[in-house]
C-alpha cells in the first residue's frame, strides 16, 4: 500500500462574484496515493481547477484539511508555502505559461534559481530535463520560436527540473493538436512510470484521461466515482 500524496478532509472553497456566493468545493474528501497518475474529470464548474490550485498551494481552502506531500498546507505561511511549492510541486498549465523573454533552457532553469545549486549545476539540470523531453536541440529557442507541443514539453521540463514529487497538470493537452497531445501524454506517462512522479491531471478529454491509472470524477464540488485502470497505457 502506497502512502497518500494528497489527503483532503472536508475541503470547502467558495467564491463571491457580484455579491453572490458560489460554492465550488463542498466538503470534499479525497485521498490520492504517491506514485500514481490521476486524471481529474468533471463538467465545467465542477471544481477541478480549484482543487488543483488548492493542492498546489496556489490558493487556500476556506474550510477543511488538506495535506499534500506530508504537509498541512493551512499551517504554512506565505513564504513557507512558496518554498514548499518550489521543492514539491511542478506545474504544467494549459497555456504553457513560459516566460516569453527567456529561452527554453532559461525557462527550465528558472525554478532552479530557488535552489542552492551553482550556476553550472543549474544549467546541467535544466539541460538534462530538456533532454528528457527530447528538446535539447531547442535549448536556445525562445517560446515564440517553438510549436505549441514543444512549448508544453518545455513546460514539463520546467515542472520536473527541481525533481518534485508531485506534478499538477491543468488541461495540458487542451491547446494542442492530437499528435502533440499524444507526445505530451506519453511524456507524463513516462514521468510517472520511470521517475515515479505522482501526477494529477485535470482534463476534459476522455482519451487523455484514459492514459491515467485512476480517473477521479468531480461533480458540483464533491467527489464522484473513481475509475481504476490496471496500469497507465503507454
Amino acid at each position, binding site marked *: 500500500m502506497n502512502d497518500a500524496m494528497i489527503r483532503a478532509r472536508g475541503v470547502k472553497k467558495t467564491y463571491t462574484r457580484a455579491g453572490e456566493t458560489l460554492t465550488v468545493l463542498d466538503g470534499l474528501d479525497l485521498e490520492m496515493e504517491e506514485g500514481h497518475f490521476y486524471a481529474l474529470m468533471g463538467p465545467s464548474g465542477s471544481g477541478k481547477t480549484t482543487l488543483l490550485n488548492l493542492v498546489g498551494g496556489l490558493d487556500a481552502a476556506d474550510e477543511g484539511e488538506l495535506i499534500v506531500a506530508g504537509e498541512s498546507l493551512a499551517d504554512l505561511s506565505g513564504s513557507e508555502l512558496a518554498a514548499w511549492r518550489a521543492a514539491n510541486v511542478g506545474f504544467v498549465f494549459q497555456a504553457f505559461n513560459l*516566460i516569453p523573454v527567456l529561452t527554453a533552457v532559461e525557462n527550465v532553469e528558472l525554478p532552479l534559481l530557488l535552489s542552492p545549486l551553482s550556476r553550472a549545476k543549474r544549467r546541467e539540470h535544466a539541460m538534462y530535463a530538456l533532454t528528457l523531453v527530447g528538446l535539447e536541440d531547442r535549448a536556445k529557442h525562445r517560446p515564440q520560436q517553438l510549436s505549441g507541443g514543444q512549448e508544453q514539453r518545455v513546460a514539463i521540463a520546467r515542472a520536473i527540473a527541481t525533481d518534485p514529487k508531485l506534478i499538477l497538470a491543468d488541461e495540458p493537452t487542451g491547446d494542442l493538436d492530437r499528435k502533440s497531445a499524444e507526445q505530451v501524454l506519453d511524456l507524463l506517462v513516462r514521468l510517472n512510470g520511470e521517475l515515479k512522479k505522482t501526477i494529477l491531471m485535470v482534463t476534459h478529454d476522455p482519451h487523455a484521461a484514459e492514459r491515467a491509472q485512476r480517473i477521479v470524477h468531480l461533480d458540483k464540488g464533491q467527489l464522484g466515482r473513481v475509475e481504476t485502470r490496471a496500469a497507465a497505457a503507454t
Partner: protein
Amino acid sequence: MISFKLVRRNLTKHKMRSALTIASLMVGVFLLCVLKSMVVALESGVAGAKRDRLVVQSAASLFIGLPLPYQQRIAEVPGVQKTCKWCWFGGYFREPKNFLGAFATDSDTIFDVYPEMEVIDGSIDDWRKDRSGCLIGDLLAQQFDWKVGQTIPIISANYLPPSGDAWQFTVRAIYKSESSAVDRRTFFFNWDYFQESFEKVMKRTPDTSTIVMRTKPGADQNEIMRTVEGFYENGPQRVQCTTEAAFQAQFLTMMGNVPFLVTSIGSGVLVAIALACVNTMLMAFRDQAHDVGIMKALGFTDGGVSGFMLGQSMLLCIVGGGLGILLVKGLEPAFMAFLGSVFPGYAVTGRTLAVAALVTVAIGLVAGVVPAIAARRLRCVEALRSVE
C-alpha cells in the same frame, strides 16, 4: 545570472518605451547637474572666500567710487598687512560679446593680498615693470588663445584710451588659482597706467571701486571693520567694510533668488521625470503580471517578485541617470568654456555627481515601489487566469 537576464530582457522587450524613459532620465539628470553646477559656481566665491581678507566699498553702492587717499589711511590701521585697489574697468576684446572682467589694480601688492594666485607663465616682475602690461587668468588666456608677449587691444565703454580707439595691453603674466575666490578669467592691469591715462583725459584723479586688505594673523577683524567704517562716518564718502564672504554674498543677493529659482526648475523637471518613470513601471507591471504569477507558482516568494519589479526600475534609472552623469562630465570642458564668462568657476563637483546619483537611486525606488507592492499583493491564481 538568469534573474538579471530576466530583469534586463523585460526592459528590452519594449525597446522604444525603455529607450524613451532612459533618455528622459538622462536629460533630467544632465539638467540637474548643469543647474546645480551653475548654483555652485554662483556660490563658489562665497565658499572660497578667505577669512583674512576684508573688502571696503562705498556704503551707498558698489558703483560709487572711493577716493584714492582712503587706501593709505586704511593701510595704516593696526592689524592690516597689505591692501590693493580694484577699479572696475570693464571693456571688451574686438567686439562687445567678448566682454571682460577687467580691473586696474596694484601690481606691487595684489600677490600679497591674494597669495593663492600663482603665475604659471611670464613673470610678476615683467608685469610690474611694464606700465601697459597685463596679468590674465589662465582660462581667459585659453578662451582667446592669448600668449605672453602678445598685445591685446581692449575697448572700454567707461574710460577713453590715452590714444587711438582702444587701450593697448601686453600680456606679461598668466595666473591660475585653485581657490574659487579667485576668478581665473580676470584681466588685471597696472593702476599707475590707468591713473596716468585717466588724468590725461579727465583732468582729475580717478576713484577706485574697492579696496581689499589682507589682515595680519590674529588681528581683530571686527575691530578693523569698525575702525575703517568709523573713519568716514561723516564723509566725504561713507564706506562699508565687510569680510570677503559677505562681499561675495551681495552678488548672490543682487541676483535675488536665482539659485533658488534654478534649483526649483531642476527639481520640477526631476519630479516630472520621476512621474514618467512611475508610469513606465506601472505599464511594465501590467505587461508582466502574468509572468509574476508564473514565478509565484514556481515558488518565488512575494519578496522575490517585488525585488524583480524593483530591480527593473532600478536598472532603468541607473542606466538613464548614469548616462546623464557621464554626459554632464564629458561635456564639462565645453560648458566651462561656454558658460565661463557668466558662471566663472563652473565645475561639476563630486558633490553634484553624488547628488545626481542619489536622485537617480531615489527615482528608481519611487518608480519601482508601486509595482513592487502590486507584485507582492498579486494573487497567483488571478495572475495565471489573466491572458497576456
